[in-house]
């Protein structure tokens, strides 16, 4: 109990002080914002993958939909960054909720196949609906708006935007943490541990899988909306199944049984991606592929899983 407090305190302290220590290490704030955004997306996925035991391979769909929701809101409806994020969160979440019933009955590799195939629907819609979504070129021409706090107006430059993202990251992470400590979260874990026994106990497993899928959709939508605001751009690539794979590898690399695993995974993944793509612009895809293979063969429990084993042994 005590250790958990220390770990959580340390994580938040590190995240809150990033503006101070990151430039000293040669990093830049936009990179830190990106890490947080992808970490939030991977944490949403991990609610399904690590805590409900459902292998979702289509999380990019709801991440991308969140982005389109935010981008389209800023293009057509209004000029408020916060409302754009609400719009993106709702779009990702509502679509996930609507498609949940198609998905919830299956498990294992079949669950993965269906989630990835369904995610392709939104990819092709985004890619083909030129007038509305910008088609293959993506949606651009919107920009994040300054924040009106009543007493002051804050322009979202890179440092301010980092704290803006951190706020929503905290909201998302807080929701997941509260959920995992609630009876609902305990039911998710029960389903992960033994689906059949949970069923025998009278738990409507399918409904809970649906709930988990829907919640993960809302939070992925939130992360996607932040992503659109960060880049002032959203493209169909954010909906593609390769992006879904990126979220899965972040969760697995960090440790999918750990609450903070996806954050650690996102730090490593985004860091390597940033480093490799600037030094080997033509072949970074191979590096990511090799990272996948190495992670699967050597670090199946993830970085935090290995650390936790070490701590327990010592």
């Amino acid at each position, binding site marked *: 109990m005590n250790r958990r407090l220390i770990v959580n305190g340390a994580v938040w302290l590190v995240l809150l002080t990033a503006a101070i220590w990151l430039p000293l290490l040669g990093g830049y704030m936009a990179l830190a914002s990106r890490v947080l955004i992808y970490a939030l997306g991977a944490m949403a996925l991990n609610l399904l993958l690590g805590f409900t035991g459902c292998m979702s*391979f289509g999380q990019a769909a709801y991440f991308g939909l969140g982005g389109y929701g935010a981008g389209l809101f800023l293009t057509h409806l209004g000029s408020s960054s916060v409302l754009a994020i609400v719009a993106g969160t709702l779009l990702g979440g509502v679509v996930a909720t609507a498609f949940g019933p198609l998905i919830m009955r299956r498990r294992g590799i079949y669950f993965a196949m269906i989630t990835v195939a369904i995610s392709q629907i939104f990819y092709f819609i985004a890619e083909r609906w030129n007038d509305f979504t910008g088609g293959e070129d993506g949606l651009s021409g919107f920009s994040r708006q300054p924040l009106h706090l009543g007493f002051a107006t804050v322009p979202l430059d890179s440092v301010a935007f980092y704290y803006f993202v951190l706020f929503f990251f905290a909201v998302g992470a807080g929701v997941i943490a509260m959920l995992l400590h609630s009876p609902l979260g305990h039911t998710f874990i029960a389903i992960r541990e033994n689906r059949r026994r949970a069923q025998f106990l009278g738990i409507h497993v399918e409904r809970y899988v649906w709930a988990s899928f829907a919640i993960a959709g809302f939070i992925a939508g939130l992360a996607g909306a932040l992503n659109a605001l960060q880049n002032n751009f959203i493209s169909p690539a954010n909906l593609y199944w390769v992006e879904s794979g990126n979220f899965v590898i972040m969760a697995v690399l960090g440790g999918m049984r750990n609450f903070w695993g996806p954050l650690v995974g996102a730090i490593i993944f985004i860091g390597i991606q940033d480093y490799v793509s600037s030094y080997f612009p033509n072949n970074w895809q191979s590096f990511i592929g090799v990272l996948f293979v190495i992670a699967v063969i050597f670090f199946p429990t993830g970085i935090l899983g290995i650390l936790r084993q070490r701590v327990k042994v010592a």
Partner: protein
Amino acid sequence: MQLLLFDGFNGLIQGAFYALMALGLSLIINLNSVINFAHGGFMVIGAYLAFSLAPYIGFWGALFVGPILAGAIGLIVERALVQYMYSRPDPVYSLLLTFGLALIIEDSVRSIWGAQGVPFQIPAGLGSPVSATYFFLTGYRLFVMGAIVVATLALFAFLRLSRFGIRIRAGILDLETVSALGVNVYLLRTVNFGIGILLAGFAGVLAAGVFQLVPTMGNDVIMATFVAIVVGGLGNLFGSVLGGLLIGLAAGLTSAFYPVASDVVIYVIMAAVLIVRPRGLLGQEGMFE
């Protein structure tokens, strides 16, 4: 009418490719319990190997050697990497592994053969249309249809009639019992993986003559292959063939009436099948439910 026939035939030939890919992928899913995300990548390998070999050994030689080389690479990959995934009950690992392989394959193909599409020479005699009215029926396309039918029948004959094929089918039903009866199930799984990849390589060589040969050609095919398997029903090889033909035909006919939706229609069909009949058209009840 003629345009409809044209799009219908295009769809059918596309569907035949999906069916052939889905067959191989189904075999691997059923016996090896691995979703092979790199299946499209292996198809591309087969196609590009044939492209490089064709100037030396001719089209017919390449059609034969390309898939075999792809299958051999599949065997090596299974021995070197995939086999370590069998003992892990969580499917996430095999998925990520083959996903990583797919990225590596696509990138390697792009580095070796270039990102631009390359032309693939088909035998001169097969290039011309069979009749003037049905201009789209080139000899090569008819040959492709025939070759896919022959390959499918050969696979079913192998699974029904040969000792090894019967063991594969028995292993799909109950691998533990087959193992207890003294069959080397490691060899069984390795060879099965190789056969699946061989079929993908064969599809790749045939596809090279019909579609443009580009490094990314596997990406869209792999998703359509998933859809074919889900529509046809997991655990049933006939279902995979049926699903492949069905979605190919649907995509072809949609492009006649409403071309913008031709990519998305197969996923809509899948969603509809999942609502009406969640196990797929010919799927076994209770599998992964």
